[in-house]
Every structure is written in C-alpha cells, then in structure tokens.
C-alpha cells in the first residue's frame, strides 16, 4: 500500500511523504550475531596474604607490612578440624560416569586437618613417594580424583580455605552444581561438603 505525494514520490507513510517530507519507513534491521572470542581466564599468581589483614606478604619478610603480624608466630590454640571421606550415592547417580561403579562397601575415612596445607590427592603407593595428607589412593578407588587434586588449608587466624589445584575433573562445594574456579581460595566451615571425583564427598568437621 503506497500513496503518491505532491512531488510524485511513492510513499509508504500516509501522513507525510517518506522521501521528501511533503505533507500528505523503516526497513530491515542490521543486527548481526557476534563471534564469541576465546576467553582469558588464566589465573594470576597466587600470593600468600597476611592472615590478619589480608595484605600481600613481600618475599620472606617475617612481619606483615600492613599490620605487623608475625608470619612465624606460633598459632593460637584452636579447635580440631577433620575431613571425613564418604561415598555419596546421590552424587554418583547425578554424574553417572560411564564405566565407574559405585562402591557399596565403603567405610568412612577420617583425616585430621592440621595447621597449614592438607593436600587432597591420590598416591600411587610407590615407596618413598610423598603421599598427600588426605590420600584417596586406597581401594575402593575413585578414578575421578587427580594425583594432586585440591588443598584444604587451615590458616593461623582460624579460617579454613579450599583451593582446587587445577584438577582434571574439578572440585565442587555443597549443592552447587558448578565446580569452583581453580587456584582461588574458597572459605569453608564446619559441615561443608567438598565433592571430588565420581562419588567422593569430603565433609569438613570442626570440633
């Protein structure tokens, strides 16, 4: 439907000519879906911050530049922490990893969490090998756990942090379906469940 304006233009609009504007429209959009670029998520260098004020420790300085905290001071007496390893049926069913069966006979394993880093991993049982503190390399074996998978770090200020060490299959926390980002400290507290591999759940306990 077009109308003709006084100057003879064919106009799609009836009030004024859509060419010359004499008294008497838009075409297709140009939206183009963009290409997704490769993302840069490379982790930056991990630094060991002051447990008191969070300032970055410079080199091996004994005292914190921010608050004067003594990095070598003996830790104050704190409660005891432990990690309890169980096989989680729900997790196993959800992930449904092909070729892996659920260990029906799995006794709870208890690991004390000492001050500092407690590595979660899988030793190969070689003589002289430095096994991780939380060694999941014994039968029944969860094949989804990396040799050096994650770390539970108990800090002098009483905090407990979970850090994935760039494991193959990732580390998840509680009911969050997404794994945590590698090489980032995530605070954990009593009762938190760290999920690794096809069925392993590590519950953090503070007593």
């Amino acid at each position, binding site marked *: 439907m077009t109308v003709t304006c006084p100057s003879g233009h064919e106009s799609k*609009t009836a*009030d*004024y*000519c*859509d*060419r*010359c*504007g*004499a*008294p008497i*429209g*838009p*075409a*297709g*959009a*140009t*939206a183009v*879906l*963009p*290409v*997704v*670029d*490769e*993302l*840069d*998520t*490379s*982790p*930056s*260098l991990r*630094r060991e*911050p002051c447990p008191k*004020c*969070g*300032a*970055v420790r410079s080199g091996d300085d004994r005292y914190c530049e*921010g608050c004067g905290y003594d990095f070598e001071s003996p830790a104050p007496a704190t409660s005891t922490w432990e990690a309890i390893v169980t096989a989680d049926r729900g997790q196993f069913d959800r992930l449904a990893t092909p070729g892996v069966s659920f260990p029906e006979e799995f006794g709870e394993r208890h690991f004390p969490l000492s001050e500092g880093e407690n590595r979660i991993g899988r030793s190969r049982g070689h003589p002289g090998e430095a096994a991780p503190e939380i060694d999941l390399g014994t039968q029944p074996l969860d094949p989804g756990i990396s040799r050096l998978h994650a770390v539970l770090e108990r800090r002098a200020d009483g905090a407990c*942090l979970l850090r994935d060490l760039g494991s193959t299959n*990732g580390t998840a*926390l*509680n*009911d*969050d*379906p*997404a*794994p*945590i*980002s*590698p090489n*980032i*400290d*995530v*605070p954990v507290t009593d009762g938190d469940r760290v999920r690794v591999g096809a069925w392993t759940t590590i519950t953090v306990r503070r007593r």
Partner: protein
Amino acid sequence: MSTFTLEAYQNEYLPLGGTEVNAIVTVTSDGAGSPSGQPEAAAIVIVDTSGSMATPHRKIEAAREATNIAIDCIRDGVLFGVIAGTDVARLVYPSGNRLLEASPQTRDAAKRMVSGLNPGGGTAIGSWLKLAGGLFRMTPERICHAILLTDGENKHETPEALDAVLAEVDGAFQCDCRGVGTDWQVSELRRVASRLLGTVDIIPEPEAMAEDFRAAMRTAMGKATRNVALRLWTAQGAKVAFVRQVLPTIEELTGRAVPVNELTADYPTATWGTEARDYHVRIDVPPREVGEEMLAGRISLVEDDQVLGQALIKATWTHDHQLSTRICREVAHYTGQAELADCIQEGLEARKRGDVGTATFKLGRAVQLAAESGNDGTMKLLGAVVEVDDPATGTIRLRGDVSIVDEMSLDTRSTSTVRVGVGAP
C-alpha cells in the same frame, strides 16, 4: 509489552531561507516488559582486585561486601558471574567460561568465592571487558548488564588496546562504571561508560560502595526491554546535525548512528525500565518557499524493527517574525544544559593547566547556567570548587583549597541535567 510515549517540542516556524530545525523529544517508558513478565537477564560484577585495592585495606573489604550485596540483588534465573580484574581478567564465579543461573545455592557459592578475593597485580580494564563481552555474547537474547568497579588508572594496557576492546564489545552489554577513591581517571571511565551506554560515578569513600552497588543492580534488574533503538528518518536532502540524549545526562549519540537505509539511521539507547529520557535533535533542511510545510524528521523507538512509538519533527516557512523568532523553551533549556557540561569540563581542564583566566570564565558561565536552569545538584558541586559572588552574572572566584574528591565529583557528574521548568520561569 512496554508502552513508550514520545512527544516532540519545537518551534516549527522558520524564517525565509531558514534551515535549522531543533526539537526536544521526550520519551517515557512504563517499564511493563513483555506479557510473559520480566525478560531474561544476564549480569556480571567486575571488581578491581589490583594491588592498590589493598590500601587502605577497607577498600578491598568494602569491594567484597559491595560485590556480595550486588549478588544478593540478582533475582533467580538471571545468568550471572563475577570477574576479578587485575592486569588480566579472571572469572571468579562460576568456573568454566560461562554464566550460571542465579539460585540461593549459586549466589551463596559466588559470595564465598568473592570473600576469597585478595588484591595483587595491575589494572587492564580492557581485558576485563573483553572477558565479560565474550560471556555475554553467548546469551545475546538476554538483557546483559555489568557493573565495573575500579580504583586506579588503566596502567597496564594502552588506550588503543582499550579502544579496540570497546569497539569489539560495543552492543554486547551495558556497563555501569564506578571509580572508588581518587586515583582513577574520570575521562577514561566516562569513555568506557558512554560507549557501553552505562552510567559513571565516583564513590569517594569505600563505605558508600555497598549502597551504590545495591542501587545499580536493582536498576539493572528493573529493565524491561532490550535492544531499543532511537530511529530517525530525515527527509531527502536534509542532514542530521546532531542527536544527543539530554536527560538524565548528556550523551552524544551523533557518531553512534547505524544506517538503516539512505534516509534512516538507528541510535542505540540500550535498555529501558520505568523511566523518562529526553533527546535533542537538530536537522538541517534545504530551505523551501514561504508557506510550505514539510516533515523534517520522523523519530521513533523501535525494538527488533517493531515501532513502539513515534513523534514528528516539522518545518514550516513563514514571513511572520513573531512566529519564527519564538524560542522553544525546551530547546533553549537543554542547549544550556549541554553548554553547562562543556563549561565544567573545559573549566576544570583549564584549572589543572593553571590557566586561571579561562577557568574563571568557564566555571563562571557554568554557575550562571546552573543557576538559571535550577540544576541544584551541579550548583552544589560547583560551590565546592568556586566561590560564588553572584550567580546571575556568573561572577566567581576560584577556590584555592579544592579537595581532589570535590574536583572529581564535579567532573564525573558534570553531565547530569535537570528537566525543563525546574528553575525560575
């Protein structure tokens, strides 16, 4: 579907040989969104975790808290993520190069990751925006919004690199920028916010961060329509001199035109909630005979080519000087508001250079314009930088003891405007 109402204010009468057609177009949106309720959204909080955020230490603490509050404001089902920015960008949450739907669990998990953030490293804002842009590009059907917080200059990449990223991510998302403290560059952050159609503001004290983030995220969550463009048709032979948003802030849009056909171009307006914005359009038309009338421009708001509302900009040539010399109040008001913003920015620049003469003249004119138009917010900010002797004539003296916070606040908020009729008639 949101309803948009457009109204044009102008003096359509031109004298013999007159070519300049000015109009103020007011646009109001009821923010009703689509019939199916609120549209789906995606949100990213970009937080600076460069080394400087460690001093004072409450800065990183406040940033963590503000980020967590922003996360709390994200409603269920919105795809979200948190980026920590240094000289590289890092997706803190979730992992795996994608955004995740907000739920009580994921919000909680994200907040944990945020509380583990510690400062260290440089500042390369372009890399942060690039990462956010890539994530948003995966969900182009959503309303995409980011809040960016920084405390320093963009030292670890060139301005050209930042420009290249801005060109690349333009249109992918809207980004509100916030500078905390006084070590960042107003012009730099304004450039980012303008290009990405967001707001820019200063947060002088870290303590105010949380409230600001809450407000910014709530506003973002209130957006009901996306990809709305201001479409301007102009008659054959006419030329668009400029298109600028003049309320709530001055934003030049002339250079952002995307041609639709030879007579029509679209200007980006990003997302709309329940709000009102005014635009100033100037069209130069070839002169016609006295007594002739023409449509100089047809301005409309379109979403995916669907016209949501329109207004007409006309021209009529007349011998009647009483008609052609009549000044349109709206046009005069916003011309003044644009000059006000320019005067402040030029005055502050001159002041920095030590050019007292130019600074006094420009800031004096700014005081006069702010007083005339009733722009009290800007007037108050000006008062911290200059001593006002007589606002009516713009007689001022530069203050000697101006704090950097006051100077940056004035600069950052210089583009804020007020509606016509606020000042004395």
